[in-house]
Each structure stands twice: as structure tokens, then as C-alpha cells.
């Protein structure tokens, strides 16, 4: 597991888990691995994993069930909001960078559309 060394690990673990939920690797309503299993998987301290899970619980993305571990919410709208949030975050960075190259919105849109077309062709 490679971490960015100056950002708290629990935030990075939370981010990875959120991406797994959004990409449906962890399906709606499914049970998450135990804290210990996640800790080993992420090569991280159990307390750190606990902290990530606690915030995910507070954000209603996972629901702890007494003695049974943590379950992904069944509420589609929560996951969809999460997805919007992460996508916006990704676009924020890219948009700001493109703007700093002195590109206007129209150029950015055209450039992005071309990029997507190019990727589609590469894929074929």
C-alpha cells in the first residue's frame, strides 16, 4: 500500500473505501471486511482503520450492526451524492490547472471532448 506521506492515513483509507463503494466493489447493503482484515489489507494500524470507519458511519455511508460488523448503506442517494462529491473534487483540480494555462471554458470543454474521443479510439 502506497500512501501520500503528509496526509493522515485514515483520510486516505476512507477515500479508498469510498471509491470501492462507488465502483460497486463493495455493493450496497453488503458487509465490509472486519477491522483487522482491513488493517492487514491496508497495512495500517487498526485504530487508524477504526477512525476511517467512524467518519464513514457519521457520514451515513456505512451502518454498524452490533456484533456483526459494518454494512454499506442501502440508500442509493447517499452513494450517488458521494460519487458527485468525488467527481467534483477531481474536476476541481483539473479545471483549475487548465484555467491556469489561460484556457477559457469553451476551450476546456472542446479539449475535454476531444480527449474523450481519443480515449475511445485508443480503446477500440
Amino acid at each position, binding site marked *: 500500500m502506497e500512501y501520500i506521506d*503528509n496526509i493522515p*492515513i485514515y483520510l486516505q483509507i476512507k477515500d479508498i473505501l469510498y471509491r470501492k463503494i462507488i465502483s460497486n466493489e463493495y455493493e450496497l447493503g453488503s458487509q465490509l471486511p472486519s477491522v483487522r482484515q482491513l488493517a492487514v489489507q491496508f497495512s495500517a*494500524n487498526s485504530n487508524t482503520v477504526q477512525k476511517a470507519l467512524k467518519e464513514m458511519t457519521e457520514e451515513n455511508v456505512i451502518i454498524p450492526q452490533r456484533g456483526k460488523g459494518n454494512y454499506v448503506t442501502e440508500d442509493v442517494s447517499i452513494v450517488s451524492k458521494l460519487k458527485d462529491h468525488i467527481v467534483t473534487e477531481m474536476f476541481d483540480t483539473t479545471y483549475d490547472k487548465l484555467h491556469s494555462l489561460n484556457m477559457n471554458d469553451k476551450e476546456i470543454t472542446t479539449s475535454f471532448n476531444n480527449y474523450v474521443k481519443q480515449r475511445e479510439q485508443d480503446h477500440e
Partner: protein
Amino acid sequence: MSRVLEINHLKYKKNNKLILDDINLELDHGKIVGLLGANGVGKTTLMRLIAGVNAKTAGKIKVSGIESKAAIKSCVSMTYSIESLKDNQIGKNNRIKVKDIVKFYLDIYPDFSLEKYQEIAKYLDIDSDEKLMDLSTGSGEKLVIALTLSRQVALYLLDEPLNGIDIMTRKKIIKSIIQWKSDESTIIISSHYVTEIASLLDDVIILKDHKVYEVSSVEDIQNKSHLGIEAYYEQVYEGGTNDE
């Protein structure tokens, strides 16, 4: 519940040379703590003092509220180098095998769990029929970790458990520490692979100039300094050149 480790005004001199001075530390149960500091600053010495192997010059060391040196030995499990195992009475026999060392641990430590050892040994691919003298550095380190973690105690002291071994084995050892650490126990680990162990740590203790320079959570360091642990630790040493 008492703290797992309390150190007050600890002082240690060797041949009249000051090694550690006025060390004060308090650690809670259930933590993994990194012990950082330059070579020769006294990390190993501090661990040996806590384990009751070296005798302190002054001050107090309490493990799980216990102060007697003999009693502390039953609450602390420290990594001893594979060389020290080889130098041990039993290890001097050239034909001695890994399984004989395991039996030796089982005999001398009532808290040694054979079941736990076998699980860890299986995970780390330790061959119990291999001769001690034939072990590579990596295999030796794996054996030392497995033996140390198989004792069921409140405090584990892992002194440079990743030295001289390849990256794949380092990662496996880190995972084995996470897998087999009981929730209540606390681990103090020293390593030069600071970035590699950063995700393992709750807190770090930085030793500098014979003293505890700082005790802080990894998260606080990241939040306050916007640096990784390794960069922060380097800064502490570089920034302090004036008083050396």
C-alpha cells in the same frame, strides 16, 4: 487501568558516559508507537532498559504498573537479534534447528503461545527444520519476529525488525505485526524505514541529544507540519545542528 508504560526521570550512563538523560514517557494500552532517532542516540538502550536487560542509573520504569525488574520481564517481549540466539547456550550447537529454538522459548516463557507461533510461522514461511546457522538475514528476522509476537504480553519492543531484508519480506513482516497484535497490547518499534512503517503507527517518540525530543501522534505531525513523518523527523535533526 494503569498505563502500559510509565517512565520517570530515567537516566542511563555507560562507562561514565551519559547515554540517556531525564527520559519521561507514558504510553497507553493498544498502541503502536515508533521510536525514532539517529544511530547511537540510545533507542536500543532505551528498549533494553524497559525490558529489564540493562540496569538503569536512575529513575523509574513501570510496565503495567509493575516496577520490579524481574516481574517486568514477564510483561515485556523484546526482539533479540538472531546473533544473540546463536550465541545463546543452545544456539552454539551447530546442528540446532529452528524448532529447537521454538522449544527453548516454550520452555522459558510461560506466556509463549505455540498456536500463535505456528500461525505466524506459516504466514511468514518459516521452515522449522532449517538449521539456525543456515538462516539468511531475512529468515532470521522473520523467526525473531514470530518468536517475539508469540509471547502474550502487554508490551512488545521491536528493535529494527526490518533491517537487512528485502521489501517483499518487510511488507509481510508489517502485515504480520498488524494481524497478530492483540487489541490491548502496545508495540514500540524502531526502524530506519520510517515511511514504510508510518501507516502502522499511532504515535512517534523522537529521541535526540540523550532526551525525548517529542511525543506526538502521526496525525498531529501531518496536520501541523504538512510533512510526512520521515521529512519531519529529518527536519528535527537538521534544525537542531546548533546545539550539537
